[in-house]
């Protein structure tokens, strides 16, 4: 007497499809909103930094002393621990340029948000580029 096989290929294929479907649904819904919000938050905090630098006189100080290190100190003190930022100041010709990072934040991941602004000192226009990203250190 020959017994039939319980697991047919069709049944196994069906089971596999159900599992795949469940895994893909779970994967899709988990953390789907996070990148969007983190980008908005990075944009907000970068704008805050830009406003603060402009009005606190930090940018003027960097251009006058030609030393951008104070910006790194500011970022270290004021930013939340998990947020990394860099600031670059350059004149309109690009001949004079200063860049400073929050200490320990040189390596960037791919999700970087940039905010641009300008600042006028002694009738000379300077461009400011603030980049922020989330640190996973």
């Amino acid at each position: 007497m020959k017994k039939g096989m319980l697991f047919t290929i069709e049944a196994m294929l069906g089971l596999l499809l159900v599992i795949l479907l469940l895994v893909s649904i779970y994967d899709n819904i988990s953390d789907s909103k996070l990148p969007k919000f983190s980008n908005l938050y990075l944009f907000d905090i970068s704008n805050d930094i830009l406003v603060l630098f402009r009005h606190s006189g930090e940018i003027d100080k960097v251009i006058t002393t030609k030393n951008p290190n104070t910006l790194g100190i500011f970022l270290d003190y004021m930013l939340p621990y998990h947020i990394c930022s860099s600031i670059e100041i350059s004149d309109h010709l690009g001949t004079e340029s200063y860049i400073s990072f929050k200490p320990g934040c040189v390596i960037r991941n791919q999700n970087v948000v940039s905010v641009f602004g300008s600042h006028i000192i002694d009738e000379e226009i300077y461009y400011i580029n603030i980049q922020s990203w989330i640190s996973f250190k």
Partner: protein
Amino acid sequence: MNFIKTKKSQAITLDLVLAMIIFMLIISVIFFTSEIIIQKIDENQIRYDLELVSRNSFEILLNSAGNPSNWHNNSLTFNSTDIKSIGLTDGRNSLLDIKKVDFFINSFDLYYDEYLKTIGLIGFNYSLFFNITQYDINYNKLDEDVIGKVPSSKKHVLIIERLAFNTLHDRYIKIKMGVWI
């Protein structure tokens, strides 16, 4: 005929039992997974609501002077239509009016429910707290205030930190806002 009378057939065969076990197992897995998925969707929805509400409320606080702009005047009351929105700035984005900040800190716990409504945290059972720290131009901490309801246990909490400045006194102001359900 004799054979049928003596030998009884088995109603539940081994194959059938095995098939039932496997079937129940699959149903259980599907049920369990769908429960997790539903739970995850609920959590995402809560987080999404918190993110949306927190960001909007924070934007109004840090990017507006309020309506009316002298809302911090003691003669105005929350329970009437006097105060339509709360803003901490002097009219410029992220540049705070220190008098408004001080009034906000001193009156927040007293008018907690009114602030919650005016900030826009209505509809759900939201709770709110702020941590406001002020620094001088050399990053020395001048003052730190915690106002509102801080969650006592681990709940759905979203904390957003923003930076602002006061041009009159040259103060950096770090504001943490925590919204939780």
